[in-house]
């Protein structure tokens, strides 16, 4: 029986520790998942579904649960991806889709038949209109998700680039890319004959 002493001692110790940890785990129990809230706050909220989830919140939940990688938010771009990777503590992954210029949807009103299908598709309720009436998109609220293009039976919705505003103009990063932009801008002003 001598040889069983160590086994007993070890078992008792393990039991004590196990009970202690069980108590501790009850005391320090974490409610909910604050991570997914943090991720959701980073997402652009376009609700575009390009990530394969029906909106931003579901994607945030999926990322927080490690079900999906961090690089599926196309409108958020690299900056969002890096921020999420940072929170999740994983290596950043390149976004496969190309980053696009910011756009908003625009309805060519004379072609619109007033079918209200786009109104139903808009995730942020920014299309105004009634059956058999022209529809209009409130450009200030449009997230550029392109979800209204598909349902339109007469293809009268265009995605147009958002105009650059003087108040929103920001200095480009010092580098080479800035060269082309200014050159074209100058040319456009000369054409406009100001």
């Amino acid at each position, binding site marked *: 029986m001598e040889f069983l002493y160590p086994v007993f001692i070890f078992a008792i110790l393990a039991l004590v520790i196990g009970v202690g940890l069980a108590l501790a785990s009850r005391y320090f129990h974490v409610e909910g998942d604050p991570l997914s809230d943090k991720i959701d706050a980073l997402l652009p909220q376009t609700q575009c579904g390009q990530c394969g989830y029906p909106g931003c919140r579901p994607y945030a939940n999926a990322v927080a649960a490690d079900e999906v990688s961090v690089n599926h938010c196309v409108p958020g771009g690299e900056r969002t991806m890096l921020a999420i990777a940072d929170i999740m503590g994983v290596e950043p992954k390149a976004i496969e889709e190309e980053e696009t210029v910011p756009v908003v949807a625009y309805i060519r009103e004379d072609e619109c038949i007033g079918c209200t299908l786009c109104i139903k598709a808009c995730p942020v309720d920014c299309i105004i209109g009634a059956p058999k009436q022209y529809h209009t998109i409130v450009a200030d609220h449009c997230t550029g998700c392109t979800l209204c293009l598909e349902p339109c039976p007469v293809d009268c919705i265009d995605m147009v680039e958002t105009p650059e505003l003087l108040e929103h103009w920001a*200095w*480009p990063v*010092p580098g080479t890319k*800035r*060269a082309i*932009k*200014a050159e074209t801008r100058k040319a456009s002003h000369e054409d406009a004959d100001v």
Partner: protein
Amino acid sequence: MIFLSSPHQHGGNTIQLTMFSVIIALIPAAMVSVYLYGWLAVFLLTTCIGISLLTEYWMLRWMGKPTKPVWDGSAGLTGLLLALTLPAAVPWWMAIFAAVFAIILGKQLYGGLGHNPFNPALAARVVLLISFPLHMTSWIVPMHMDATLNMYDFVTSLQFFFLGPDAVKQTWDAITMASPLGYLKTELGQGVTVSQALVNYNYSTLHAFIGREAGSLGEGSALALLMGGIWLMARHTISWHIPISYIATVAMFAWVFNMINPDVYAPPLFHVLAGGLILCAFFMATDPVSSPSSSIGKIVFGIGCGVLTWVIRTYGNYPEGAMFAVVLMNMVTPLIDYYVRPRVYGYKRGKKA
């Protein structure tokens, strides 16, 4: 037309100007080394500088970068500083190894100028000291001390440099002596008092100041180094913060402990003039890349160097702590930059936005 932000005027300072000012400021010290060790110093200086430049050139070519930065003076300065921290007894291969190490591992692998976390010359010197302690702690007797020593003419020096002491029919013991710091450390270990040890060594403060004691090439003359250093400060190439706080800290520690027990702790003047302290304080610790950016950070850096130098000199295994102190503080630099910031206009100290 490109987007160019103001200001549209520039003061005219360049990296090249900065680097070459430091090189010019080191010329008096280099000349003193030639005076002390003759051709040996010349060989060492040319080898280190030449190999540094060559290595820089080859690294840049190998990495497919433009080779213009070779001439910005930083590689040459690294070579020069490296040579000035080496003892005259260092053979050719060791000098080459150190120069290659300094440029490749110390600088180019980190992305070149501006990105090295450690001072390249000091990093190489630390590697040598740990790898080859015998060579790195044997100091050739300066020329003026023993005129009978047949060591300093061109041919003998060349033979010694390439083939070692045997080739010139000398032994290490005959041609080398201890530096004041090393001698003091050994004597103190045997229970001799500081003052007695200094008398035994025939130490003279004046000699240490104008440059007649044994040591590394550039350590010899405090006077020559001070001339260069003060010129750099006057030119605003280096700021006063690091050298002054560094030397003052060492002096203060030495003074306080010397007051407590003069038998065990060396006097402040000895600490300041002996070894590589002045060289390190003015030319190594002030290396802009591996030292903090802000003035207040520089003072913290200098104090840190001072404390470490004194502690390592007094308690450590190595008689000279200045080099280690600077490399150790280089590691702390990013943290100093992060935590020790100047007070921003309109804020109370220590308060952030």
